[in-house]
């Protein structure tokens, strides 16, 4: 069955990973410090500790996703700092980063997700189909093959992540908090799955990070971490023995250094005094919330008494937050009623909000305001009397132990203190009800207990009603009553003790699982395709046996891996309406705007005449101007005041004054002067007007001269025959549109290409590039191909638009134009990819790309002023910028009737740019995170 020695129980001598003096910093923050550790092979190793102690950094270093800063890491018998070792080791390691479905592509189907990973590891089509079939069978995902990954429940996402990680038969499986935010039943199924896999492949080593101590108790070997250091390591029983603690939670606290434990005390919540029941603080009756055809909360009812601590227990996405939002009036229930102190909740009722304090999931206060400013703002918004505020703030600061941090910014504070600040803010106006949405997730056990101590006092001493959601079982046990919630429904509401008793379960978690199982069973018979996965046993261990390793593609370039990215990128683009719209509609809209916006034709300018002469000859002069298509005559000007006024309000672009006695003086051959004023507020327009007026004046003079002097006027005369070449009608659109196409084919494709990479960086799926054998060229080229195709589509659309909508004549060789466009879009998408290596956030990418493309393309590439007219830096940019050459080709093909022979010299720079850009992009792209 397996070529690997069975090594489940006893630890083999050769460790799977060996760390020596490993340290890691992000800026000034020290994430890992001096870690020296041997991680045993062939067993389940757990990394325990709260959020932010360096677990994830450590795992990503071991997986090779992050570049090593300090120390030495050996994994599977080689140095992870060595590129060649990493390249041969990637196919032997599987890494599932933290966060539900973090390395998955939410818009892709279950099948396409796994298929993508299969392609990355260079499997052939047959092999992929066989493996995917087996994986889907074994994980029970087979019925959901076509569903989008983003629409799976948390548990299913993690199973899918596992399938993706296991497709290439890894020898080392690294899981970073795989079960955080997953309901207990799915959690249990997940671990069963892992056990099965390990039975099928006993030689495989598994390293897991977890915040759940109950889970950790089942592992073979544990590493406890805090503050970037290893506190202790050993088997769970060894750790318990060493600390003398009853469970791992306690053991972990005992392992913490003394100063972290200071002030720690066991949380003891005194029982509620009997006979207090009476006034209901919160009542919910048949609350239902639907979003479209998805029911987030389904017929939920409960009644919470004043002073009670009421717990809401369930996985991510089960409807806890939605229920809480309905109670605070943030959401209006689709059906059912909720009452606070007997008053029905009305989102428009401002008064009831004064009685409620709300703490939303995660930290959601203003990180740009200091602790004091946050408290102050909230106090003011609750309408507290201004003179009472300072005292109240001082009181809260003391109560929640914030006095030392009043002028700090929240981001600079540890999570535990930030949670206290959130609570202080929620309490600032002394509400009667506190609604707390997962207030302790990510907080370390000591701070968590401190937090519960405060809750206990609020409830018992001040009779504050507390409605709190959590997914920690030990916190649920502290509540007076809890509701178990799953898939929008409340399964049971009772005291923790009664729930355990009713199901005859050893623990609350076990009881919860049994409730979930019966709920899932009921649901399965009712509707087989419900949101939750059926609690069926997973497949046979045989499904997990190791396959003979197929010969994989070239180490440096494998088209299969490249096309894996191409295919995925294309699928994602098809599923993203905003980007797809921008790509197609955006270019056309921008073309329309720029085509008309950069319009040099000046027509229908207004003018009026102040005619002091008013003779036939003066009217003839005016007629010369009024008759042209450039000018429209307005009512005559009556006097100078009228002239001033009408020019001031912009009514007239041109005013002509003909002096008294114009006709008489002209006939006598005396010098006469006609006055003309142009509105100079807009210089370009004024300049054109000036040109027109001068031209018409000269024309009129020549005509008159011929009339008066006859042929004598032609002596010494010459003609200047102006040939407006390429654009005989001198239409602005004919000149601008062929230059707009290159600009748009730069702007949009490069921006899409930048976003395609930066999005992955921001969303985290870039990790798949870090930990798989994909090379930089495969990654870049693979991403580029769909955008080149899209840009060519854009090119065809824009050209059609230019010819058929704008009516720009196309006179040259289309084949040449299209060939040049193809090269050009490879260049522009390549520029995008190159830019993406510098950017890390999407918003920076958008503005950065706009800056790097818009100005050079519109100013320095010959669109308005030819490159030969530029000087200095502008001229240099113009000469090396690829748009310059495509503008030449575009104008040549559109207006100058040119073919390949005439334009070949402009092809050369484009041909050179392609390898240069790709080479630079590949050189600057990082294969590991920092």
């Amino acid at each position, binding site marked *: 069955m397996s070529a690997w020695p069975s090594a489940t129980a006893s630890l083999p001598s050769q460790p799977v990973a060996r760390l020596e003096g490993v340290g890691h910093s992000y800026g000034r923050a020290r994430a890992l410090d001096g870690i020296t550790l041997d991680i045993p092979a062939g067993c389940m190793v757990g990394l325990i500790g709260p959020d932010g102690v360096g677990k994830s950094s450590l795992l990503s270093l071991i997986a090779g996703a992050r570049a090593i800063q300090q120390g030495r890491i050996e994994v599977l018998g080689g140095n992870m700092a060595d590129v060649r070792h990493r390249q041969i080791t990637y196919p032997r390691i599987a890494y599932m980063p933290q966060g539900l479905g973090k390395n998955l592509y939410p818009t892709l189907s279950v099948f396409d997700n796994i298929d993508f990973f299969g392609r990355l590891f260079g499997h052939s089509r047959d092999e992929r189909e066989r493996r995917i079939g087996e994986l889907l069978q074994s994980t029970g995902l087979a019925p959901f093959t076509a569903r989008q990954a983003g629409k799976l429940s948390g548990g299913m996402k993690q199973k899918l992540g596992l399938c993706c990680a296991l497709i290439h038969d890894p020898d080392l499986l690294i899981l970073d908090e795989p079960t955080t935010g997953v309901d207990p039943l799915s959690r249990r199924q997940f671990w069963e799955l892992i056990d099965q896999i390990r039975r099928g492949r006993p030689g495989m080593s598994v390293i897991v990070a977890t915040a759940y101590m109950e889970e950790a108790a089942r592992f073979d070997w544990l590493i406890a971490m805090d503050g970037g250091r290893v506190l202790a390591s050993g088997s769970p029983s060894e750790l318990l023995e060493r600390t003398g603690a009853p469970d791992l939670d306690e053991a972990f606290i005992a392992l913490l250094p003394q100063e972290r434990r200071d002030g720690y005390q066991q949380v003891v919540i005194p029982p509620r005094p009997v006979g207090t029941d009476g006034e209901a603080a919160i009542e919910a009756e048949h609350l239902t919330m639907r979003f479209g055809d998805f029911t987030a909360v389904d017929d939920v009812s409960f009644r919470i008494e004043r002073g009670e601590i009421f717990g809401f227990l369930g996985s991510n996405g089960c409807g806890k937050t939605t229920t809480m939002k309905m109670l605070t009036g943030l959401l209006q229930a689709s059906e059912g009623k909720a009452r606070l102190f007997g008053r029905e909740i009305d989102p428009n009722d*401002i008064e009831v*909000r004064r009685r409620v304090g709300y703490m939303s999931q995660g930290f*959601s206060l203003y990180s*740009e*305001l200091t602790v004091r*400013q946050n408290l102050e703002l909230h106090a003011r*918004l609750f309408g507290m009397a201004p003179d009472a505020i300072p005292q109240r703030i001082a009181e809260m600061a003391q109560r929640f132990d914030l006095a030392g941090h009043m002028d700090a*910014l929240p981001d600079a504070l540890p999570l535990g203190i930030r949670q206290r600040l959130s609570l202080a803010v929620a309490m600032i106006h002394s509400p009667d009800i506190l609604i707390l949405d997962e207030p302790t997730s990510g907080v370390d056990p000591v701070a968590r207990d401190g937090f519960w101590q405060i809750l206990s006092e609020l409830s018992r001493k001040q009779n504050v009603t507390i409605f709190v959601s959590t997914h920690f079982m030990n916190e649920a046990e502290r509540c007076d009553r809890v509701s178990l919630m799953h898939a929008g429904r409340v399964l049971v509401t009772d005291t923790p003790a009664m729930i355990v008793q009713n199901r005859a379960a050893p623990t609350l978690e076990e009881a919860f699982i049994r409730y979930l199982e019966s709920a899932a069973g009921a649901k399965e018979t009712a509707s087989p395709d419900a949101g939750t996965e059926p609690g069926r046993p997973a497949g046979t261990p045989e499904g997990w046996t190791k396959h003979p390793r197929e010969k994989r593609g070239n180490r440096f370039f494998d088209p299969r891996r490249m096309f894996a990215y191409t295919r995925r990128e294309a699928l994602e683009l098809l599923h993203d309406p905003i980007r797809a719209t*921008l790509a197609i509609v955006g270019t056309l*809209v*921008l073309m329309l*705007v*720029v085509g*008309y*916006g*950069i319009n*040099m*034709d000046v027509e*229908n*300018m207004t003018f009026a005449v102040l005619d002091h002469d008013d003779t036939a000859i003066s009217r003839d002069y005016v007629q010369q101007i009024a008759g042209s298509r450039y000018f429209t005559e307005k009512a005559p000007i009556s006097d100078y005041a009228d002239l001033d006024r009408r*020019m*001031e*309000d*912009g009514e007239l672009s041109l005013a002509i004054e003909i002096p008294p006695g114009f006709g008489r003086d*002209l006939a006598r051959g005396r010098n*006469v*002067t*006609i*006055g003309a*004023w142009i509105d*100079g*507020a*807009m*210089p*370009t327009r004024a*300049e*054109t007007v000036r040109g027109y007026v001068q*031209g018409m004046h000269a024309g009129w003079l020549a005509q008159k001269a011929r009339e008066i002097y006859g042929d004598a006027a*032609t*002596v*010494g*005369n*010459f003609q*200047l025959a*102006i*040939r407006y*070449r390429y*654009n005989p009608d*001198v239409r602005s659109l*004919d000149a601008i549109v062929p230059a707009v196409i290159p600009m748009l084919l730069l702007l949009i494709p490069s921006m899409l290409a930048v976003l395609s990479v930066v*999005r992955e960086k921001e969303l985290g799926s870039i990790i798949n590039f870090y930990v798989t054998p994909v090379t930089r060229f495969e990654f870049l080229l693979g991403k580029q191909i769909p955008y080149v195709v899209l840009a060519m589509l854009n090119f065809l659309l824009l050209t059609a638009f230019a010819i058929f909508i704008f009516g720009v004549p196309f006179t040259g060789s289309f084949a040449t134009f299209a060939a040049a466009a193809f090269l050009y879009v490879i260049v522009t998408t390549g520029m995008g990819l190159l830019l993406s290596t510098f950017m890390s956030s*999407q*918003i920076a990418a*958008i503005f950065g790309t706009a800056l790097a493309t818009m100005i050079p393309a519109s100013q320095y590439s010959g669109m*308005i*002023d*030819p490159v*030969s*007219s530029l000087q200095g830096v502008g001229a240099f940019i113009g000469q090396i910028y690829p748009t310059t050459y495509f503008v030449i080709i575009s*104008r040549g093909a559109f207006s100058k009737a040119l073919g390949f022979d005439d334009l070949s010299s402009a092809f050369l720079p484009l041909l050179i740019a392609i390898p240069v850009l790709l080479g630079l992009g590949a050189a600057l792209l990082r294969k590991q995170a920092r």
Partner: protein
Amino acid sequence: MRFANILHLGIKELRGLARDPMLLVLIAYAFTLAIYTASKAMPETLNRAPIAIVDEDQSPLSSRIVTAFYPPFFTVPQLISQPEMDRRMDSGMDTFALDIPPNFQRDLLAGRSPTIQLNIDATRMSQAFTGGGYVQSIVSGEVSEFLDRYRAETVLPVNLDLRARFNPELNKGWFGAITDVISSITMLSIILTGAALIREREHGTIEHLLVMPVKPFEIMMSKVWSMGLVVLVASGLSLVLVVQGLLSVPTHGSALLFMTGAALDIFAMTCLGIFLATIAGSMPQFGLLLMMVLLPLQLLSGGVTPRESMPWIIQAIMFAAPNTHFVILAQAVLFRGAGLDVVWPQLAALLAIGTGLFAFSLRRFRQFLK
């Protein structure tokens, strides 16, 4: 509605902005450096226009013409042969090619009215238009000076005294500077309010506000006044320090009137920013949307090219954009010194558009909060 809430939330926005170095730099850049460099870099209409001359005459007159072209308006003319001309123009090396025919001087003096051919690459609109006129007048000037010694007076003694009002030298930088101030106002009003709203949503703080006794109207109003005030102050400073000070653009009309117009324009634009932020799901989408909205607003508002030359449909659509009216107002007030009696229609239009946008955005904003 409580004014205190609007005030405190607005102050919160200002504090938040003060802690965002990126946005502060953007504001400072948009109202100083961007305006200064754009105004200085605005090229003269005709700047080093490439010209080539085919001199088939080789006479004193033709060489006189050749030497009449020089920088900065034109490049030093390339003397080329006729067969070269087409090739050079095809490859875009020259915008102008002047062909002086053989025996030009002789024919001219003999009254045979010879023809000089001027080829203009009309795909380069900016140079083609104005440059053509320049070439024509330079050649005519040289020819007539040359002829002065030979011919009798046959020209009518009518002079055209052509003056440009409000900007006598037709200095493009003046107008460019004001257009850039308006562009910066447009861009920042939208970005600051839009980003303020999206940031609140991405950080989850908006929910926090909604569970407090605060109304959507108050939240929106607070963002409008605080971000609007920042843009208004920045644009006022920019007008005084950069436009009037550093660039010494003479402005005529009442600064107060201009600032009133600016305030109304900013009001409308901040509402537009809120509206866009409610459409965009996230910062990146907001950025993409911005690209599609800002460019039309700036290019088609009449600040870059005259509105009169746009198709009527675009003129009609752009009539609903606040910029269009603000550009008209700014030109009238700052350059032509117009007063309230002249620009009141623009102020009224800005007020109407702003109110409409505000009502519309508030409705969107309420739905968005649901």
